[in-house]
């Protein structure tokens, strides 16, 4: 149940981040900061595992900092957000206390998606 809630929140924050990046003129840092601030202030008040959910949404806010060259479509961003949610949820003991931990997990999830995407894109291009 908890993991489903985490995934829903991760997707919601991913969608919000994608929308903010596409529809506003906010910089990537501003978008990520706002998403982090809202997650950190709101989620711990409403959920028993609120702090974990805030960590997940913060990591997702780093995912949405990806450029549109890397993640072009909404579904791509959401897939990476989902991977990131699961990595943070199941990787709570990873790099504990090290600054940049969430960013590292966000980058790992982005690369899990981007590397095969680029690889298969190149393969398709070669076949043509």
């Amino acid at each position, binding site marked *: 149940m908890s993991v489903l809630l985490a995934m829903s929140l991760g997707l919601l924050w991913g969608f919000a981040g994608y929308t903010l990046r596409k529809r506003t003129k906010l910089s990537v840092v501003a978008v990520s900061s706002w998403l982090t601030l809202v997650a950190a202030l709101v989620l711990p008040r409403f959920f028993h595992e609120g702090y974990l959910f805030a960590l997940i949404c913060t990591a997702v806010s780093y995912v949405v900092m990806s450029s549109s060259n890397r993640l072009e479509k909404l579904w791509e961003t959401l897939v990476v957000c989902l991977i990131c949610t699961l990595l943070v949820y199941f990787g709570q003991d990873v790099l504990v206390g*090290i*600054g940049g931990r969430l960013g590292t997990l966000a980058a790992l999830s982005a690369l899990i998606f981007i590397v095969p995407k680029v690889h298969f894109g190149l393969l398709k291009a070669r076949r043509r």
Partner: protein
Amino acid sequence: MLCQHALILLPLFVATLELAIPFFSKTSGLIYLSLVTFIFIVAPKRCAIGDWRKILPSALISALGAVATFALANHLDLGPLVASAIVGLVGTFFLAEDDQLKIYLGAFVGMTSVARFPSLGLVVVAGLVGGVLWQVLNETWNGVGGRLGTIAAAAVLVVVLTLGGGL
């Protein structure tokens, strides 16, 4: 280019190993330290830094972000998430877009716990290292979300393993 990848891959390597092998962290300190030493022997010879004049401002901005976040998180008890968000937001009001990224990178460094960085001096050093790494790794993984955090984690790991108490 290989050198840049080696530098930025350090925290990803650590995270992947800890994810794959839960008890790895107990014996990991020595392996990480040898990896860091190897990278820092190779790095100065192989890594081409784009513009040396940009290193000092980059390091200072990053260190400022790190100290501000660390102070807000631990001395004002705001916690690392709120502290980093505040530093990032303040940065967006006063700095150009490229400098916003540097201060946000510093903010990630400042999210390190007091258990890892018992003194503010270590935070400053990690912030400075983060700023230098930003210049060295400027073109690496461009546009990949989480890149800033990965660079920050690399800086923190380097300082924790060399000057701090280890992992």
